[in-house]
């Protein structure tokens, strides 16, 4: 035992190798390996007559993805939803996270953290189906709005072309509400973590130099929350881009990227197109992060 300890103490590289190789192998094979396998699949194509995968490098599948209007519609629809959900989550999360991180203490703080995480402990499917009931034409939300005499407002909202529908549960508005509900904790937690790290003396210094609370918020709190917002938005954005259950249970007809991946690799048996669709979110997130970095979102890290 002692001899072995001395051996590794004298040869730190062996020590690191012993510690790092197993997890790196796991990470390399399972995470990166499967990602590259997916990437490789997207460069194959399917033979239209035999429905067999042709294992030759080709851009035909990508061509199909970007030239067929139906496919482009799916990407645009999904990305629009993801952007809307991300912005809504950020706007709702900011005051909550600010309160949790900067003002709440002790029990109140614990209550908020548990409250934010509690919904994540229950089944995702249960929550989606529950929301379908809540949003249904005869559901509790429509009923409550009726009691408040706001049925007209709801009808007007549902009559909006593009995002409306016969009821909340079969409209993009309803789908948007469910997405925001589902991913909100993923925005609040990183944002609160970023705000927790801001030293209180920075806020005092800002006030000391003559900044009113609103100016302190804009000039100090918000810029320092940006890395948290960026991290949270990657979650909300990518989760929305990849989800296929919410769009298939709630909302208007029309495929989303996740549903398309599901359909193409399942019933249609078109693995290359499914792979090409799933590369889209990867590229979009990469582009998003590059832009965020260009604008200095991570400078305060």
């Amino acid at each position, binding site marked *: 035992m002692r001899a072995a300890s001395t051996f590794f103490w004298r040869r730190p590289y062996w020590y690191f190798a012993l510690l790092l190789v197993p997890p790196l192998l796991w990470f390399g094979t399972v995470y990166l390996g499967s990602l590259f396998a997916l990437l490789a699949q997207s460069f194959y194509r399917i033979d239209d007559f035999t429905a067999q995968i042709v294992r030759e490098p080709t851009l035909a599948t990508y061509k199909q993805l970007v030239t067929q209007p139906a496919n482009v519609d799916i990407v645009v629809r999904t990305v629009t939803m993801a952007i809307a959900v991300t912005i809504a989550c950020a706007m709702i999360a900011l005051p909550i996270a600010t309160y949790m991180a900067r003002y709440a203490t002790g029990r109140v703080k614990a209550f908020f953290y548990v409250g934010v995480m509690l919904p994540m402990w229950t089944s995702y499917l249960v929550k989606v189906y529950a929301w379908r009931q809540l949003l249904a034409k005869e559901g509790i939300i429509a009923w409550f709005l009726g009691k408040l005499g706001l049925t007209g407002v709801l009808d007007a909202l549902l009559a909006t072309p593009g995002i409306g529908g016969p009821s909340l549960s079969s409209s993009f508005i309803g789908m948007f509400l469910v997405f925001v509900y589902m991913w909100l904790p993923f925005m609040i937690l990183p944002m609160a973590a970023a705000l927790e790290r801001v030293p209180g*003396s920075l806020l*005092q*210094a*800002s*006030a*000391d*130099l003559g900044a009113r609370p609103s*100016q302190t918020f804009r000039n100090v709190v918000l810029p320092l929350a940006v890395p948290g917002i960026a991290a949270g938005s990657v979650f909300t954005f990518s989760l929305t881009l990849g989800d296929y259950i919410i769009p298939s249970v709630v909302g208007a007809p029309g495929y989303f990227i996740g549903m398309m991946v599901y359909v193409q690799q399942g019933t249609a048996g078109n693995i290359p197109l499914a792979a090409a669709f799933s590369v889209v979110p990867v590229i979009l997130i990469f582009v998003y992060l590059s832009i965020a970095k260009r604008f200095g979102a991570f400078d*305060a890290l």
Partner: protein
Amino acid sequence: MTAAIEFRGVSRIYGEVRAVDDVSFSVEPGEFFAMLGPSGSGKTTCLRLVAGFDTPDRGQILLEGEDVSSTPPYDRNVNTVFQDYALFPHMTVLQNVAYGPRVRGVAVAEREQRAREMLDLVQLGAQGERRPAQLSGGQRQRVALARALINHPKVLLLDEPLGALDLKLREEMQIELKSLQKKLGITFVYVTHDQGEALSMADRVAVFNKGKIEQLAAPRELYQGPATSFVARFVGSANVADAALAQKLGVGAPFAIRAENIDVHAEAQSTPADHMAAPGAVLAVQFHGAASRWQIQLDAGGIWSALVPEEETRRLNGLAAGARVRISWPRDAAVTLRG
């Protein structure tokens, strides 16, 4: 003349703790005023009360004769240099310094001009485009100073500003701060737990203990005539004879005697008539260069220390830990304490 700062019976109570307990004092315009005390003595709370980060539970705080007890920090004409500097990490040095004018609506060109002047004042003119994280501790300190001075405050509050710096830099900054204060003529309120810092820089020092001011006096007066045993110990590292010990030594009231006023002799040696003497045993002798510090256990109780010049220590050659000695001190060097 109206006082720059005046505390009238100010108390700040956190739950059971009286952080500041019925404190009254005033600071003259242009004065370098130090608040000295151990941690938890209330000095930092007093500073926060002046800055407006905290409000008093009782009493009034006046800035230039105006009651600001419930004025928010952004409406007070005082600025603070924070212990951790509190520089904004997402802004450049220049943007940090220009922040005060910026939030007060000064145009970009003018505020950057003023910020450059302030950076020149603290000899950081070339560092404007860097981030605080790229600066050394001493440079950050100067940026914090420049940022706090740009609004031309009537009073500058400094919360242990040199605490994070190493000794050499700290001594340089002490001299620089003092000359800056003279040059600008601003009232400085300087919080520190380092009595050397307070004595060397301040015009007057308020010694805090348990939420109250034990003594408020000029540094010399504080050092030579401590009013209480706390001040004697904390400021002068003096030997204190409490009421019981004083009685055993044949003196009516508690008194303090500084280590450099104590002579150490062989036990048998007699003492001059104008001296007081006490027998004891040597606990330890610590070498400090020009002098040695002797720790002596008095037979009457209490451990005192004597600062003995090097040649004297050599003359006492042979006396080491455990040896019996007799210490003496001039009667007129003893300072009578009130508690």
